[in-house]
């Protein structure tokens, strides 16, 4: 609690004690008025002041005005106790709201507490703590075990395990050694690291993420805009309603020749005013979104605005890119077929023949071989563009390449009916078999698709530039409904536009990509989700939702988080407006008294705020 809140609390206690004391005394008339004015002014002087200022500034219809009119009215009618009570409960409500909001604001910022406070710079053999903002690109910083890496850079000395959970929500630690690039925000767990910075602090991952999250709730959702518009219309409407309620019925009664009952109708009108305060709505909606965005960022899902959280919750179609999204984008040897010699021997020949090439294929062959390449064993290596490589390994002529190379060499080759890239091998002048190289599925890819189905996604579509055979096989394995293959980047945009035109207005389409070359598609879809964004500025820029690690399961998680958050928002809207309307009707009919009115105002607000905070808890979704 801050100073201001403590002061209010003392006033509340003082006023409450005095009010209870005076209501136990057998006092009447002017004495009662005089005594009850003491707690009334203690608790309400600032509200009265604000109400007067509001009128002077021509800002009439605000809550202070409502409360002032309601309580002054009650006092004029002789209900001193109720006048004080209304003010008292209003202040309790305000205090609680301020406290709850402050508390959740703190909670959420603690969750996102990844901002490093300092960087260690070595000067004359001594470590000095400096503001990370002052560290220039290319300087060397030292990170001790237990400290956060303050700035992006490359390790030049030391190795360690890094805890990335604050960034990705992934609790599995990551190994890092000399020469590795590391990103800011990770916690160095075991070893002392010397890091050469590659960026300024302001450009580092941690700053980018903080900036994004802090600005996120500035993009307002439709529900938030609805509520501000609603409040703008609602408060004056209720005020005029109250005035009509106070004046019209008594006037009608006078014309009908019965007693006007001014006191009764004015009391009803005042009850009306107390109920009408829009606080519950106005506070709980942005609070829900803020909590939802905060909870999501804890799970490594960064949402750039409340509006995107809302759109995400309406997602019924999910379109994926294949490589890097559903598959690892790393090619590996997945099989050897038709081999005329032992598999490892064939792979050894292939790895050697391709050893001079920097093609991804040759890299995967080298990985599959697994041993150090002794380049002196290879002679006469020659790359035949678009076909493959011929070379002598240990003096034996080896050819590795596609079927065109085999045809050129005049060798018989066998069709390999598996999906993937096929490297045909010829050793010592005869066909020796083929090696299949394919992209591996991500470990959770299949689960991710079924989770999406459970989360209410109607259709999943995969777009890829890859060959049809490969794409179909992946789609079948994952259970994806539709697949479009052999697409150029421009075709992907067209395909997404086609899908967009097919769906109904209320359904939203999300595109998930790795953000590297699909920026146009990311921005064309209703909502663009970039994954594996750790350290990639391009992805963070282009997408609306950023998944910090590359686990496809997080897509379903993000949708579930958004659903929960939006559900809470609607609960609060219906609950608060519903209770208010019921109480307004009861108040107008004279059934609700001032006490129910106080519940309708403060009670509803407290419940709505507590409900809003639930949006923060998303771990088990």
């Amino acid at each position, binding site marked *: 609690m801050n100073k201001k809140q403590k002061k209010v609390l003392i006033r509340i206690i003082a006023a409450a004690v005095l009010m209870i004391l005076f209501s136990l005394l057998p006092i009447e008339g002017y004495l009662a008025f005089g005594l009850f004015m003491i707690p009334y002014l203690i608790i309400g002087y600032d509200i009265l002041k*604000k109400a007067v*200022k*509001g009128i002077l*500034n021509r*800002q009439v219809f*605000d*809550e202070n005005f409502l409360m002032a009119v309601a309580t002054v009215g009650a006092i004029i009618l002789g209900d001193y106790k109720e006048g004080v009570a209304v003010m008292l409960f209003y202040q309790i409500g*305000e205090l609680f*709201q*301020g406290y709850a*909001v402050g508390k959740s*604001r703190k909670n*959420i910022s603690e969750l996102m507490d990844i901002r490093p406070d300092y960087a260690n710079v070595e000067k004359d053999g001594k470590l000095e703590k400096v503001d990370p903002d002052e560290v220039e690109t290319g300087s060397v910083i030292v990170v001790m075990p237990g400290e956060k890496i303050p700035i992006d850079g490359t390790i030049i000395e030391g190795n360690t395990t890094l805890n990335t959970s604050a960034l990705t929500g992934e609790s599995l630690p990551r190994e890092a050694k000399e020469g590795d690039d590391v990103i800011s925000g990770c916690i160095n767990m075991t070893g002392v690291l010397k890091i050469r910075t590659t960026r300024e602090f302001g450009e580092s991952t941690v700053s980018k993420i903080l900036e994004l999250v*802090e*600005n996120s*709730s*500035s993009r*307002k959702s439709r529900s938030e805009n609805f509520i*501000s518009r609603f*409040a703008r219309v609602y408060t004056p409407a209720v005020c005029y309603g109250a005035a009509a309620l106070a004046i019209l019925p008594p006037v009608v009664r006078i014309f009908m020749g019965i007693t006007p009952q001014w006191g009764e109708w004015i009391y009803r009108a005042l009850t009306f005013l107390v109920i009408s305060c*829009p*606080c519950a709505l*106005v*506070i709980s909606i*942005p*609070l829900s979104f*803020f909590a939802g965005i905060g909870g999501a960022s804890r799970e490594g899902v960064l949402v750039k605005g409340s509006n995107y959280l809302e759109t995400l919750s309406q997602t019924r179609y999910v379109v994926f890119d294949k490589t890097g999204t559903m598959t690892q984008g790393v090619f590996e040897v997945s099989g050897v077929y038709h081999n005329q010699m032992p598999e490892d021997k064939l792979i050894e020949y292939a790895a050697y023949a391709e050893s001079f090439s920097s093609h991804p294929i040759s890299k995967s062959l080298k990985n599959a071989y697994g041993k150090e390449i002794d380049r002196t064993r290879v002679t006469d290596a020659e790359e035949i563009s678009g076909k493959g490589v011929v070379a002598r390994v240990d003096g034996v002529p080896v050819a590795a390449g596609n079927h065109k190379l085999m045809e050129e060499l005049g060798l018989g080759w066998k069709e390999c009916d598996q999906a993937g890239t096929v490297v045909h091998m010829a050793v010592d002048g005869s066909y020796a078999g083929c090696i299949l190289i394919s992209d591996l599925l991500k470990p959770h890819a299949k689960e991710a698709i079924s989770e999406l189905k459970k989360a209410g996604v109607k259709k999943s579509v995969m777009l890829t530039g890859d060959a049809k055979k490969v794409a179909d096989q992946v789609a079948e394995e994952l259970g994806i409904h539709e697949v479009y293959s052999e697409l150029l980047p421009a075709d992907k945009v067209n395909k997404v536009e086609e899908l967009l035109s097919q769906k109904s207005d209320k359904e939203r389409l999300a595109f998930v990509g790795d953000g590297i070359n699909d920026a146009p598609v990311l921005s064309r879809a209703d909502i663009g989700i970039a994954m594996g964004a750790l350290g990639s500025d391009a992805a963070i820029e282009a997408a609306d939702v950023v998944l910090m690690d590359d686990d496809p399961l997080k897509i379903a998680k993000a949708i579930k988080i958004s659903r929960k958050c939006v559900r809470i928002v609607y609960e609060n809207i219906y609950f608060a407006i519903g209770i208010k309307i019921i109480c307004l009707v009861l108040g107008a009919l004279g059934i609700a008294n001032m006490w129910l009115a106080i519940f309708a105002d403060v009670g509803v607000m407290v419940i709505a705020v507590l409900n809003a905070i639930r949006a923060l808890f998303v771990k088990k979704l």
Partner: protein
Amino acid sequence: MKKTYKIDVDCANCANKMEKAANHTAGVKSATVNFMTLKMIVEFEEGQDPKTVMQEVLKNCKKVEDDCEIFL
């Protein structure tokens, strides 16, 4: 030009009122108040001096909500 200012205000409705007041100030292209992070993001119109515009913004905000503060 866009600038972010720290603000202090007690209730969400008051924050909405500040936003409206800031948006109606001459020289402000658009203003967003973020109640949860207590920040006001102001985009100024071309050729306007942020300092003088912000004085006006503060004055207008004080008018609609006496109890607010913008840390300039």
